C-alpha cells in the first residue's frame, strides 16, 4: 500500500545530480558565451548610459518643458500637461529627481526595445497560425514565471547592472505588445484586405498600408500595457543593481522606512499614471482620426 500513500519520487541522489548537472551545464554555457552575449548588448548599454546622462545633465526646467510638450502632443489636454508637470515638480521637490530620471531612462529604452522586438514577432504570429500556437505558451510562461527565477540565469550570464536589469524587465513587459499586435492584425476586416488584394497590393504593401495602420490603436494599447508592466518591474530590477526609484524602495523594505518607501512608491505610481494617460489619449485620438476618415 506504500505505493498509494507515498508519491513515487525520484531518488534523492539522482535528483541532486540532475540539479547539479543543470547548474553546471548553464555555468559552462555562460563561461563560453557570456562575454560574447555581453558584447552584443554593449551598444544598448552605451545608449542607455548616454540617455541617463543626458537626462541628468539637462537642466530641470528644460526637462519639464519637454515633458509638457510631449504631454500636449500626445493628449492635447491642458489638464494632463499641467498634471504631469506638477507631478514631476513634486518628485523633484521630495529629492527623487535623480532616481526618477534613471527610471525614466530605463523605461524608455525598455519600451523602445520591446516595440522593436515585439511588433515583428506579433506580425509573424498574425500571419502564421502555427507560429501563434507555438508562441502563446511561451508568452504565458514569460508573464507568469516568477521573475526571481529568470534573474538567476541572467545574473550568471551577464552579472549585475543595467543590461541584465533591462532584459529582466523586457521579459516581463514584452508579452502584451506581442499579443495585441497579433490580435490587432487578425482583427482587421477581411473585406478590407480583400479589397487591397483586388487592387493588386503585394503582401508587404498590405501589411504596411492596410493591416498595421488599421491595427494601430490595438497595437498602441499593447505599448501602453508594456510601459505599465515595465514600471511594475522597476523594484525587482533594482535587486540586480539597476539604479532608480527601486533602490530606495528596497532600502525601505529592509529597514522598515515607511515614509521612504511610500514616497518612492508614489513616484512610480505618478510616472505610471502620466505615461498611461498620455499614451491612452494618444491611442484614442488615433482611433478618432480613423473614425473620421471612414
Amino acid at each position, binding site marked *: 500500500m506504500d505505493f498509494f500513500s507515498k508519491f513515487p519520487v525520484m531518488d534523492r541522489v539522482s535528483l*541532486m545530480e540532475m*540539479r*547539479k548537472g543543470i547548474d553546471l551545464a548553464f*555555468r559552462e554555457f*555562460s*563561461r563560453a558565451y*557570456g*562575454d560574447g552575449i555581453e558584447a552584443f548588448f554593449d551598444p544598448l*548599454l552605451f545608449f542607455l*548610459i548616454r540617455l541617463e546622462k543626458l537626462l541628468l545633465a539637462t537642466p530641470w526646467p528644460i526637462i519639464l518643458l519637454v515633458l509638457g510638450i510631449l504631454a500636449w502632443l500626445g493628449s492635447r489636454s491642458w489638464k494632463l500637461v499641467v498634471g504631469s508637470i506638477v507631478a514631476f515638480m513634486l518628485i523633484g521637490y521630495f529629492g527623487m529627481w535623480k532616481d526618477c530620471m534613471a527610471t525614466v531612462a530605463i523605461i524608455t529604452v525598455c519600451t523602445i526595445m520591446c516595440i522593436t522586438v515585439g511588433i515583428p514577432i506579433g506580425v509573424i504570429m498574425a500571419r502564421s497560425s502555427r507560429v501563434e500556437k507555438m508562441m502563446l505558451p511561451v508568452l504565458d510562461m514569460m508573464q507568469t514565471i516568477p521573475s526571481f527565477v529568470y*534573474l*538567476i540565469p541572467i*545574473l*550568471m550570464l*551577464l*552579472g*549585475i*547592472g*543595467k543590461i541584465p536589469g533591462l532584459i529582466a524587465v523586457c521579459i516581463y513587459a514584452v508579452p502584451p505588445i506581442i499579443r495585441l499586435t497579433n490580435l490587432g492584425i487578425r482583427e482587421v476586416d477581411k473585406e478590407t484586405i480583400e479589397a487591397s488584394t483586388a487592387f493588386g497590393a503585394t503582401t508587404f504593401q498590405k501589411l504596411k498600408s492596410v493591416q498595421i495602420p488599421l491595427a494601430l490603436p490595438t497595437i498602441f494599447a499593447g505599448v501602453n500595457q508594456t510601459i505599465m508592466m515595465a514600471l511594475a518591474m522597476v523594484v525587482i530590477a*533594482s*535587486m*540586480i*543593481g*539597476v*539604479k532608480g526609484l527601486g*533602490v*530606495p524602495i*528596497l*532600502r*525601505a*523594505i*529592509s*529597514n522598515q522606512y515607511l515614509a521612504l518607501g511610500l514616497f518612492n512608491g508614489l513616484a512610480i505610481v505618478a510616472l505610471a499614471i502620466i505615461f498611461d494617460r498620455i499614451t491612452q489619449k494618444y491611442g484614442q485620438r488615433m482611433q478618432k482620426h480613423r473614425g473620421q476618415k471612414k
Partner: protein
Amino acid sequence: MKILKKLIISSLAIVGFLAFNINANAACGKLVIAEQNWASAELMANVDKIILEKGYGCTVELIPGATMPTFTSMDEKGEPDMNPEQWANAVYTPLKKAVSEKRLIIANKAPITGLGEGWWITPGTVEKIPEIKGMTAMEILEHPEWFPSKEDPSKGAFVGCPAGWGCQLANANLFRAFEMEKKGWVLIDPGSAAGLDGTISKAADSGSPWFGYYWNPTSMVGKYGLIPVDFGVKFHSRDNWDNCITLAEQDCADPKPTAWTKSEVNSIVTANFAETGGKDAIKYVKKRTYPGEVMNAMLVYMADNQAKGSDAAIEFLKQHEGVWGKWVSSSAKKAIKAGL
C-alpha cells in the same frame, strides 16, 4: 604490607576515577541547543548535539533560533541552554549585563577563527595582476584602472553592500573616508544578496578582477577562495565606527579611514548548562574552535549538496577527525567514533 597498601590505594584511585567518570556522564542531563537559521550555525549546533550525546551522555534537543530571539529567550527565560554562534555585536550591552549577573556564561570567545567582515579580492584578480598580492586596500585604491566598471570603464568598480543592509552604510562611509571618488572609483550597489554573490561568481568564472565587500565564514569565501585585503590602516576608534561609519551619510559628516570593526562571535551558555552539562561539557565547548578554512569547506559542502545541518555534522565528524579530536577526551572520542 606496603605493597598491598599501595595496591589498595591505587585500585581505589582507579575505581574512584572510573566512578567519577561515570558520574560525570550520568550528571549530564537534558540540554537544549539553539539551531540558528544559517548554515554555519546549523552545522555547529548539530556537531554539538552529536558530540555531547555520544561522547558525554547528554540528551540534546535542538530548537530553531535566530540571533535576537534566541538571545532574548536565553537571557530572560534561561532557555535554550546554549547558542553555539552568538554574534556579539548585535547584543553587546545586554550580553555584558547578563554575564556580570551570572545568568549567561561566555563559554568560548572565538568558536570560529578568521571570521569577520571586510574587503576581499578574487584569486582571479591576483592571477591577472600579480603585483596586487599582499597589497593593502590603501595601495589598491591607487589603481582603479585594475577594476574597470562595466558602465564607465574609466572608473574602478568597488562592489559594496546591497541597499538596506547595515554594511551598506558602513561601505558608503568608508568610500568617502578613503576619498575613493576622488581616486576614480564608483561604489556599485549590487541590489541584493543574490546580486552580490552573482558579481563574485561571474568574476570568478570569467577570471576578471573583482574587489568588494564580503564576510566570513561563508560558502562563497570557501568556494571561490576569496582573499581578504588588509586595510592598511588601523581601526581608528570606537567613536568613529559607532557614531559615524555605521550611520547614515548625513549623520556622519567626517568619516575617518579605518579598518573594519572586529566581529565577535561567542558560544554562550546559560548557568543551567554549566550545572546540567557538567564540567566536561563546558570544557568541550571551551576547546571547540573551528579553523576558518575547515568551516568554509563545510559550508561549500553544504551549499553544493544542499545538505542539512545534521547531514553536514556527520560529514564533518567523519572527515575532520583531526580537528574535533582535539576538543574531546580520548574516551569521548572513541565513543563518538563508535556512535557515527
